[in-house]
């Protein structure tokens, strides 16, 4: 800090041209002081965000009986393997993770295809009833899930699909929010690119596949992450549809660890911790695209 302040006081204008005040205590120092509350606030918020996660790690390495009472453990204990074994034994966790992964991946792939194509169509083609069609899509977003549960359940029951994966995946493949997100993105897509491709004689599908998709990668990354997370965390619908323990998804299986007179918190914490790993991995892989996707959206406004 002292080094920078002496350096800047030699020639303050080079460090911050916007600071019109004369060099006194050193603008960088002053700026540091001014920003201190901001950093403090950021530090506090980071701690608030990280502590629950740390607690999850700590809790998953202790027996449940140690998680009640005071003082609470702050350091990891030695029960990780015992908890893992119990988690595997009581809910067949490895199988359940595979189920969740399978469902989430299949759902993400197909739902993204639907969203991208619908969004593209609604944004770039002009056809009669386009506005109404978009309106209908948006209206479905406004119907609360609770209203849909019983009728949708009856549809699945009469199709004989209860306790099957297609019943978990199919009803929500056409995702209104995803379609809307893609449509908004494609609205700002440079039309000249599409026109150029048409002039060069590319078919509609080729234009879409070769020209549009590569350019739209950031927004697709955002869509993929959003879609995957929403399916990965989905609880009430898989709970209603799946009736066999070996077909449960992670949230449904973890829920069965809450008992009548006992709650297996360490198992729950470990399960939740393991359940966040695929999300983190997904985020790491798509991070670059995701951030630019967010920024892209912000700039376009």
């Amino acid at each position, binding site marked *: 800090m002292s080094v920078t302040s002496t350096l800047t006081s030699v020639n303050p204008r080079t460090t911050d041209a916007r600071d019109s005040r004369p060099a006194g205590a050193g603008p960088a120092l002053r700026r540091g002081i001014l920003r201190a509350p901001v950093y403090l606030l950021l530090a506090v918020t980071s701690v608030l965000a990280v502590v629950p996660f740390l607690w999850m790690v700590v809790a998953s390495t202790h027996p*449940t009986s140690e998680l*009640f009472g*005071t003082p609470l453990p702050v350091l990891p204990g030695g029960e990780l393997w015992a908890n893992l074994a119990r988690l595997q034994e009581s809910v067949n966790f490895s199988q359940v993770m595979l189920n969740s992964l399978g469902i989430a991946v299949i759902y993400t792939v197909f739902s993204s295809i639907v969203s991208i194509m619908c969004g593209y169509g609604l944004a770039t083609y002009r056809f009669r009833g386009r506005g109404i069609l978009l309106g209908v899509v948006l209206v479905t977003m406004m119907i609360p899930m609770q209203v849909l549960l019983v009728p949708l359940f009856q549809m699945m029951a009469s199709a004989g699909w209860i306790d099957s994966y297609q019943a978990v995946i199919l009803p929500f493949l056409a995702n209104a929010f995803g379609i809307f997100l893609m449509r908004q993105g494609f609205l700002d897509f440079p039309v000249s690119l599409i026109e150029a491709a048409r002039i060069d004689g590319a078919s509609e599908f080729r234009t879409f596949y070769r020209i549009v998709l590569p350019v739209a990668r950031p927004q697709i990354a955002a869509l993929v992450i959003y879609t995957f997370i929403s399916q990965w965390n989905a609880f*009430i619908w898989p709970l209603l549809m799946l009736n066999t323990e070996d077909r449960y998804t992670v949230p449904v299986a973890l829920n069965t660890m809450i*008992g009548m007179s006992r709650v297996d918190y360490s198992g729950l914490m470990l399960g939740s911790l393991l359940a966040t790993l695929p999300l983190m991995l997904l985020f790491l892989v798509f991070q670059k695209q995701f951030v630019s996707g967010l920024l892209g959206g912000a700039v376009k406004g």
Partner: protein
Amino acid sequence: MRSRTLLLPAASLAAAALLAGCAMGGGSSAAPVVLDPDAKVSDEITVWSWDVAATALERLGAEFEADHPGTTVNVVDVGYDNAYDKLSVGLQAGSGLPDVVTIETDRAPGYINEFPAGFVDLTPVLGDAEADFDPFKWSAQSDADGALKVAPWDSGTVGLFFRSDYFVDAGIDPAAIETWDDVVSAGETIKQTTGHTLLSLDVATGAGFQMLLQQQGQGLFDDEGDITITSPEAVEALTLLQTMNEKGLLKNVKGWDGRVTSAKDGDSAVTPEAVWWIGTLLGDAPELSGTYGVTELPAFEIGGVRTSNSGGSGLAVPAQAENPQLAAAFVEYALADADRQASMMEHEGLFPSYLPALQGDYFHEPQEYFGGQPVYELFAEQTANIPPITFTTDNAEASDIVANAVVAAVLNGADPESALQDAAEQIATATGREIAGE
């Protein structure tokens, strides 16, 4: 303007779908299932349960299959916390439910009232055994016409758990405790000598007020469906809770986890709770082994009832079951049999509501955790004494209003009598029922 014409058919389609949904939701268009107690059973059933209850049914399911060749019993652990979401949607939709479901005693009256045609009448199969079951369970799990809809399974017989080490330190003989007044004065001595609070309750959810009410043979409503919470018994129960708080004997905790934590921290010198609390203590507070004892729930006056009910569950056969005959046969096999009910106590800790089962040797065995006291004996003796009470369709709504009255009296110092009077008037307005005795 053209666009309007497009929207209209869409809207009418949606409306038609909604109507169709309602029509189907009504369910029960077919004649109600009537069980034949002598029918020969075969084929397959699926059973929904949770936690240790599922473990127990799985074990008994295998025995049932061996005793009844040609049958298959599939038990699914659907989880306890959200099993009711599945049950409610299935009942509403009229499809998707298995042959047997587990329902807690507290929830049973609500489901029975809301879905009068939702469950099979089990009386033809179990009716002969009525006298052998905990009378409270039987009445709470039957409909207004006396048809048994949810077969009684495990009981929530209440006793008073106490920290024997605190009682020794304070020089109090737990056997001398007979009334709630005795408990309050014991609590004061314990607080003075050991510094521990007498008991921990979650005031926001009603602080066990309804348990104290049931101990005196009262529900929130009487047999005529009138509101009873302005009775002298109710005022006495609420005054008791208020007194304990004013004397600093009560620790207000939040939810289930708060109560477990409080027990481990030693902030509960006594815990009035059902027999299943033993499972919680053994599992979550093993280090307190040897420090606990159990006595009967203190009475409101000498000679009064010394138990109540908290929790417990039962088995029901939905009307939409594919194989109700086999389902009912399995329910009878598992629940109306002394040896099997006793085995569920021994292996899974489910305390029987089938009274003959309570004669078994297991209930007389000394329990190490309780310093060698044969605690189950006490619960076994008290199970038949649980006072039956009346439930109505409005119990859930009334419970919330009563919980608010408990908060007002215990935490905010309102006069118990006027707090209950206010609550009774609120319930009367909300439900259109009358207040008893007015």
